């Protein structure tokens, strides 16, 4: 039995004495279970610590740390950033363990039958350039996206022209409005029209958002049995949210929408690989899980190139704006980007969303992390806890705006 500080309480912990407020009311009787809302409630009431049996708790935390550490085994264990990510993911795993979650066994990590899949191109003919050509010859980049891109790049763009353009696509308008009303923006009043959204968010910013959302539409035809598309987009949207928060934390004048969309589309090369090489890319996913290596390393080992090599050709053939393409193509190699400081935002956002997913039981190892590029962002590693907290307030509702 020992005292546990209120801010360190975790759901599932059993209190060993009555928890009383400073005025003597019993908030939680002896033997009661701490729920997720308790830490905040108790803090609000001015309770600073409670008596709890932390012996099991310590064991649980260690078990959570051991589980989580496996997924960090590919990256530098001395990185201050990863230490933050590790603590956060461990916390999530501990919460899950406390509620009776059973970590996946080796068999579960590997149990997936991909034998029904066939690649469109044989290994001899499938280099990044060829698979992108195969894609772009079959399907052109949607007309509406081309017009949005032109709008984004045009000096003559106006609220009127952009509103009209977006208004022609009802699906796109609805999605943009949902996004404008999500916690991502947290406007006091509901945003009811695209025109209003442009006024509030900005012309260039809404153009960027619209281009990103239209690009997602392009990929809606990928059959869900090919790969778990819901997880794919969850990861992508998470990365976008983190990228936006990080860019805002770096100060004003950063165009957060640019980072949101770059985060959203950072794995776009992987979508082409899923379409053209479903067997090989699913085999890479399995290989990554079975051998505890990041997906990007499994792609390199098994297929011979990675999804960023593919996105390079894809975005070039689409003539995608360089301000987005440079960030997307370099999210695993920020140093190679024209502006490493900006590419580091997507790099970090990707790592943070991976940490969240590891905490949620996702079975992929965190890729290597570039601390030097992170340092260029001018944020202290200790500041990431706040970024995680901000993310938590936005994530679920923003993600659901997409589905």
């Amino acid at each position, binding site marked *: 039995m020992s005292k546990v500080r209120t801010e*360190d309480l975790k759901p599932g912990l059993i209190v060993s004495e009555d928890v009383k407020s400073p005025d003597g009311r019993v908030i939680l009787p002896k033997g009661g279970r701490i729920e997720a809302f308790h830490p905040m409630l108790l803090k609000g009431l001015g309770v600073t610590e409670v008596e709890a049996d932390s012996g099991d708790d310590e064991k649980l935390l260690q078990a959570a740390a051991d589980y989580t550490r496996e997924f960090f085994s590919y990256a530098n264990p001395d990185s201050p950033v990863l230490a933050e990510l*590790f603590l956060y993911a*461990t916390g999530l795993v501990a*919460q899950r363990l406390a509620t009776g979650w059973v970590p996946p066994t080796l068999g*579960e990590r590997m*149990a997936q039958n991909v*034998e029904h899949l066939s690649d469109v191109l044989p290994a001899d003919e499938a280099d990044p350039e060829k698979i992108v050509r195969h894609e772009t010859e079959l399907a052109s980049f949607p007309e509406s996206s081309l017009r949005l891109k032109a709008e984004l790049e045009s000096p003559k763009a106006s609220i009127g022209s952009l509103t009209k353009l977006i208004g022609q696509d009802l699906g796109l308008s609805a999605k943009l409005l949902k996004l404008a009303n999500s916690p991502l923006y947290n406007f006091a009043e509901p945003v009811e029209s695209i025109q209003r959204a442009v006024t509030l968010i900005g012309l260039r910013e809404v153009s960027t958002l619209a281009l990103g959302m239209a690009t997602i539409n392009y990929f809606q035809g990928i059959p869900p049995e090919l790969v778990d598309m819901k997880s794919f987009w969850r990861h992508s949207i998470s990365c976008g949210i983190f990228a936006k928060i990080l860019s805002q934390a770096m100060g004003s004048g950063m165009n957060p929408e640019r980072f949101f969309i770059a985060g959203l589309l950072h794995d776009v090369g992987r979508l082409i690989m899923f379409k053209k090489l479903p067997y090989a890319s699913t085999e890479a996913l399995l290989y990554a899980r079975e*051998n505890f290596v990041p997906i990007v390393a499994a792609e390199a080992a098994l*297929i011979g190139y990675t999804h960023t090599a593919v996105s390079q050709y894809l975005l070039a053939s689409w003539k995608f704006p360089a301000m987005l393409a440079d960030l997307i193509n370099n999210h695993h190699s920020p140093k190679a980007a024209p502006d490493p400081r900006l590419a580091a935002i997507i790099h970090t956002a990707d790592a943070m969303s991976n940490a969240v997913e590891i905490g949620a039981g996702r079975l992929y190892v965190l890729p290597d992390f570039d601390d030097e590029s992170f340092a260029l962002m001018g944020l202290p590693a200790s500041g990431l806890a706040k970024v995680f907290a901000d993310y938590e307030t936005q994530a679920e509702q923003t993600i659901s705006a997409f589905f």
Partner: protein
Amino acid sequence: MALTLSPTLSLRKAPSISDEEFRKLRDFIYSKCGIFVDDKRKYLFETRFGPRLNALGAKSFSEYFQILTLSPDKDKELASLFEMVTTNETSLYRDTKQLDGVRASILSKIIKEQRAKGKFELSVWSAGCSSGEEPYTLSILLHEELGPELRKWRIAITGVDLSPAMVAKAKAGVYQEYAFKTTPEDIKKKYFTPVVGGLKVTDSVASLTCFQSMNLNDAAATKRIPKSHLVFCRNVIIYFDEAMKKKVVSSFYDNLLPGGVLILGHSETLHKISAAFKPMMLPGAMAYEKI
């Protein structure tokens, strides 16, 4: 959620490896087995080797390196090192489209030719056989293809792997449920029997196979493998650098009988490695014929 930063809750668990220690160990591994360890795997190395260092009581990678190179037990230590650098899990009946293609277009042709010659012999080399999944899968394919005629044939499927531990597992031939995720149910019923700890291959399937630990880098050893009609080497050369890939593929070439065929992993290609083979497009797979 805030967590107490207890000192035991740190990300680092294993002793750290310096760049120089990493280079030394990497070069050592390369010289011993041709496996090339990329710089990117440095931290993975620490994690994989950490428990071994702890078990040996080695406080640093330099001490571990001394044990590897100087101790009387160094051969035993080398075996456990091989185990750590080649942990590739696989399953039975993996890549069924490739197997179907091999069976329909290659095996049946070789069998027909051998029958015509009255030579009821067939040999297959499974290079990098891990814990035996591939050799047993091939044995089952041959059981299915030949049926009762199998009795007339002399078939040898030689499985080799770098890791003695993997070879021991292969010889045991016992697999857990997850190794069967891609195996058709009727095949599983017909060729495996439940035992303690999983499902065991039947004696008949095992009788066509033999296993040994072998280093593909060892030219003298690979020469001792019986000449083959078929060489399977799936997802193994991905561990090698260019020079080693060429060396290993040329040992396959030497081993193959005229007209013999090399099968690589699904996404692998001989492109840039060797022009001595004729690529063949099978439904669902590529194969390389010795010319």
